[in-house]
């Protein structure tokens, strides 16, 4: 199976910037963009976030969207990233494309702003349906010039974009579509910032994934999509292949609604399944872009799963959420694009702020940037509430 699903385009917007170049340079520079939320109206100015530093107005302009048309911030971010991916892949209106979006927050930013007004006047009625994840997604699909003939929306909380990408791969493998744009979008909302805050899993400092003294995660936002097609289809139309999606695995930890099992059983099985699909051995993996949220529970559970899978041959491990924050349903999309950039540029970003080894783990993450390294296979993990665990494997285009 390895190498059959080609990745011919990518688009991204996150706290690291807009576009592939800005993202790569921000990662290489190693400057952490996590800071107090500027555009989200919240009292929690003490909580660092990976906010996209563009106001809604700036996003409308960037999308060339009419400011009179109300769109959720998730849609706006999604339009920015999906259009980049479409252009990067050189897709045109004649292409029959499926669009699979991962999102959970959807239009909650609109709902929380106008919810009280909905019950007081009829002036905002047209906004009500923007709450729906499907409506947010259609707004993105409608903005694309390529012919989007199919949309689907997946919401498995923090692994949604990974499952969207896996669904895209299945649609291509089964011969249902030639080209799929898949990934995820999520804006910061007061609703889920407060939800995570009430769970007491947010760090008041920039997060420290895998560090013994980690105190929790920082939320982030963004959108990222990749363009998938069969290798044959990509070659036929002369598309540049950036990388391959060679494996994907989905399992359920089935342990607890918000906590991961102590031994990371679900995570381990998801990684094993992805390797099986890719027909690769653990020793083939050069870098793990970990889920690595920075919570006590996740990093220990994921770390244990990595130890079980890799034993004493641990590949480089790092979390890029120390740059982007945890962009929940978009996270796996951001990390897919980052993984592809790593493969293309022979680069592993630092797991920022790592100082102290966790006594419960027998490995340490990548503390500093590694450049000029040949990477063949990168494994990217994404785990969601409810134990929805997913792993993706990306492989170098030249393989």
């Amino acid at each position: 199976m390895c190498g059959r699903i080609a990745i011919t385009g990518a688009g991204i917007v996150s706290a690291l910037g807009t576009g592939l170049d800005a993202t790569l340079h921000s990662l290489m520079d190693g400057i952490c963009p996590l800071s107090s939320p500027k555009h989200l109206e919240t009292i929690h100015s003490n909580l660092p976030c990976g906010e996209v530093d563009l106001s809604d107005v700036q996003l409308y302009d960037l999308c060339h969207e009419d400011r009179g048309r109300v769109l959720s911030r998730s849609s706006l971010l999604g339009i920015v990233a999906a259009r980049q991916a479409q252009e990067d892949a050189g897709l045109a209106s004649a292409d029959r494309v499926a669009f699979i979006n991962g999102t959970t927050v959807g239009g909650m930013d609109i709902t929380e702003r106008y919810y009280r007004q909905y019950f007081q006047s009829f002036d905002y009625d047209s906004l009500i349906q923007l709450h729906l994840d499907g409506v947010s997604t259609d707004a993105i699909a409608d903005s694309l010039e390529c012919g989007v003939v199919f949309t689907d929306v997946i919401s498995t909380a923090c692994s949604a974009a990974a499952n969207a990408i896996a669904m895209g791969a299945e649609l291509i493998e089964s011969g249902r579509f030639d080209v799929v744009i898949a990934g995820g979008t999520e804006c910061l909302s007061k609703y889920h910032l407060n939800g995570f805050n009430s769970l007491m899993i947010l760090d008041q400092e920039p997060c420290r994934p895998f560090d013994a003294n980690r105190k929790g995660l920082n939320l982030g936002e963004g959108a990222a999509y990749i363009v998938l097609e069969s290798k044959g289809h990509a070659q036929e139309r002369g598309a540049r292949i950036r990388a391959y999606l060679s494996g994907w695995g989905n399992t359920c930890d089935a342990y607890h609604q918000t906590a991961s099992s102590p031994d990371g059983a679900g995570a381990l099985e998801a990684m094993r399944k992805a390797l099986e699909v890719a027909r690769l051995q653990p020793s083939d993996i050069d870098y793990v872009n970990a889920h690595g949220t920075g919570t006590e529970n996740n990093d220990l559970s994921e770390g244990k799963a990595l130890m079980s899978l890799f034993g004493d041959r641990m590949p480089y491990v790092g979390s890029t959420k120390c740059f982007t924050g945890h962009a929940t349903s978009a996270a796996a999309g951001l990390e897919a694009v980052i993984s592809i950039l790593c493969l293309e540029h022979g680069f592993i970003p630092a797991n920022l702020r790592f100082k102290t080894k966790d006594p419960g783990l027998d490995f340490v993450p990548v503390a500093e940037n590694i450049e000029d390294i040949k990477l063949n296979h990168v494994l990217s993990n994404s785990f969601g509430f409810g134990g929805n665990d997913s792993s993706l494997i990306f492989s170098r285009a030249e393989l």
Partner: protein
Amino acid sequence: MKRSPVYINASSHISAQEPFCTLESFSPISPDGAKVLCKDPDFKPFIPPMVSRRMNSIVKRSIAVSKYVLDKAGIQCPDAIISGTGIGCVGDTEVFLNQMLDNGENMLNPSKFICSTPNTIGSQIAIYLGCHGFNSTHVNDRFAFEGALLDGVMLIQKGSADNVLVCAADQLTDSLYGLMDREAYWKGIPVSEGTVGFVLSNCPEGASAAVEDVVLTRSNPSWELDRMLRDNSLEWKDIDAVVTSLLPGEAPDSFAFVPEGVPMLTYKQYCGQYFTASAFGLLYCGELLHRGGKNGRILLAACSRGTYSFILTSSLCTN
């Protein structure tokens, strides 16, 4: 391309009809009322009361229906659990949202937030059954069920799963009803809610019907439908009936491509309108086919905001 059929080994529902009842007991729900809520069963045989008390109604119904259909199919733990829901655990979402808007952003209780993500349904089923297999949740508005069904069909056709539990669920709250009604999101006929579960399998033994193809399209429906028939080596004369998402009595303008003479049926007189009502439509097709004898073939068709779904179903003898 013709693909191998996927069998419906069991299906059932908690809906506006009597819980778990079959076709013979279906009766039209009152057309004058504004909304009709689910008729809930006694949950005790499915979930211990201590556990059930902490669950919201959509999760309770989904676990009960899942247990019911899995028992019917003789399966303890399916290879995959796939949920479809238009708006998920909207009741708990409203509670947490109201807490935040009423009390400001302090001292919030996380219990409702935890259960407010749409994948709570699928993961609570998995936790309850102890299933560690594939688990996903589709939330594409009025096509959330079709996304979940397609996902399950692909897993079985590829051989990644022998059996898949597909659970489609939506819940109606007073606020949701008020808001959606205001926006004329629903028109006519009672707005309702429901949970429908299916056990899909690669094995025809004990099955009631088969799903031959699932197509969802934003493109030209007539073109896509012709292609679907061609892919399955069928012509319109092979289709015994089209079951549509239309309301009873609604003009079939959006299904003008159905040739004259092909009987058109509706199902919403039994389940009302809700996001994943098409799952009830598939259950209805299965019931009709199961009773209709051999060589039956029904097309389930839905339309909303320019998107169409087509689910091709058949009785077992045709395969």
